[in-house]
């Protein structure tokens, strides 16, 4: 992306700024606005309610109204808070989730940074959030916030292990760290997706399917925990810790935590899509190819990518409105005693199958 912009403007700085700002304004903000609305609608309809109905058609503009309200709100900083850290924390959390978008390929033509180590970069940068949360919880000088931050740090750090192992499995299978290549391998039909054994045919493809499903489940559960969603929303468990690490935040700073959460939700869904569900590839081939309109293909890819991502975001919401939350020690229990052993066994079996490919 940066290269294209650089060619157009002929100026590195301008190209940098635009390349950096583009995902924020074109994608993350609209998506977060949409996702907050979707969450409210999904929860409402699951609970036999209507949800927001007033602002716009079925309340689609509700989030914009909310954001306007949040911007106008007084920015309260507790007297006893550590002001520097308190102000830095939401920015850090937001930056963490925002930075992950740099390596996500929305289509074959649009990638923030087509780094060879894309997936590795995402794992690294998403743990950035922990620092922000810890900072916010500590700086608030509030006991609930502190407890929430401690829980969050423990949780995110532990759940990175199973997700990293599953990602390792996939990397081992494909032999690449580049997310664009991941997508390219799973060419344009759904039976080439890794959840269905990946491209190619023969016995190994079918042998892989159950292990791919296990891998997918583990990755889905652990990413759910990484973005603090129910049943793993322990850091902000509202019935115990009021609001967890962002108890003391208000106004736009609170909105930044909120935006980061929804941004993160899409980021992890995108990773899952890329690893198991064909990335930006269409499940049924491209209209652009069949009608010979080459410029249509990338647009279709963006559509499919967002579509798949939103489906996983929807499932996250679906889970949230179905399940109670775990306790903090049970959370660790699930991670260390269930997810990690299963993902290890999965890794070994997939490795053996790969040998015979």
């Amino acid at each position, binding site marked *: 992306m940066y290269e294209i912009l650089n060619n157009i403007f002929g100026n590195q700085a301008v190209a940098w700024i635009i390349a950096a700002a583009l995902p924020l304004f074109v994608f993350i903000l609209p998506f977060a606005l949409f996702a907050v609305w979707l969450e409210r609608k999904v929860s409402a309809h699951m609970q036999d309610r209507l949800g927001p109905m007033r602002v716009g058609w079925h309340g689609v503009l509700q989030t914009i109204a909310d954001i306007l309200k949040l911007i106008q709100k007084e920015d309260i900083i507790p007297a006893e808070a550590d002001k520097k850290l308190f102000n830095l924390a939401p920015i850090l959390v937001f930056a963490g989730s925002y930075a992950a978008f740099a390596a996500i390929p929305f289509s074959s033509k649009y990638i923030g940074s087509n780094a060879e180590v894309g997936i590795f970069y995402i794992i690294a940068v998403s743990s950035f959030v922990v620092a922000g949360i810890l900072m916010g919880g500590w700086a608030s000088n509030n006991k609930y916030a502190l407890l929430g931050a401690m829980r969050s740090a423990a949780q995110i750090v532990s759940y990175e292990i199973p997700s990293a192992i599953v990602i390792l499995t996939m990397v081992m299978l494909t032999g690449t760290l580049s997310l664009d290549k991941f997508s390219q391998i799973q060419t344009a039909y759904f039976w080439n997706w890794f959840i269905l054994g990946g491209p190619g045919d023969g016995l190994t493809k079918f042998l892989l399917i159950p292990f791919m499903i296990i891998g997918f489940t583990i990755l889905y559960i652990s990413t759910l925990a990484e973005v603090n969603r129910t049943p793993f929303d322990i850091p902000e468990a509202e019935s115990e810790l009021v609001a967890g690490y962002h108890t003391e935040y208000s106004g736009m700073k609170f909105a930044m935590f909120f935006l980061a959460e929804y941004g993160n939700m899409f980021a992890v869904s995108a990773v899952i899509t890329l690893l198991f569900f064909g990335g930006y590839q269409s499940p049924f081939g491209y209209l652009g190819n069949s009608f010979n309109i080459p410029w249509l293909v990338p647009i279709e890819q963006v559509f499919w990518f967002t579509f798949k991502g939103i489906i996983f975001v929807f499932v996250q919401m679906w889970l949230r409105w179905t399940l109670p939350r775990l306790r903090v020690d049970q959370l660790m229990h699930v991670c260390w005693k*269930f997810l990690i052993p299963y993902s290890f066994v999965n890794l070994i079996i997939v490795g053996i199958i790969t040998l015979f490919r």
Partner: protein
Amino acid sequence: MNGLKQYFKDTWLGIWTVLVGMKVTFKHLFVPAVTIQYPDVRVKLPERARNRLYVNMDDCIGCDQCARACPVSCIEIETVKAVPGEDLGTTSNGKKKALWVTKFDIDIAKCCYCQLCVFPCPTECIYMTDVYEFSEYERQNLVYKFATLTEAEVEEKKKNFEKFTAEKEAQKAAARQNSSASATAKAKAEQKPEQPKTE
């Protein structure tokens, strides 16, 4: 071995019960909502609904029974007896009114909507309506004044009654004194015409 069995059972149960729950919530996605858009759509209240009190002053005889029944003392009634010759009319169920109701205040902010005031009323003039939206910015505005008489009228009625009682007292005193001394009775009788006339 048993532990291992339990381990797999736990894993299975964990996944299975989550799926069962997800099925339930997914089904509800397609169930029509039970909530309504309140100020636009309103539920029809049942006929016995207990909301804001209303007093039909045409029927009130000022018997004070509602105020006495009220557990939170939110009803304040003051009455003045009518003097003979005043016609207050009758209530709709044929009772003759004998009292001017000079004050009938209900502090709706205090009211607990228990309906205890409604039952003792002999003329069924106090009852609960179906009005439930009457919030106010000032608490004082929630004191509902039902008395129909104006302040001037109230003053007048009070004066009338005072005079009437004074007259009566005077008559009684006169009657008493009549037997003892006729001279004082004369003096009293002279005073009489100076008093203002009643309506």
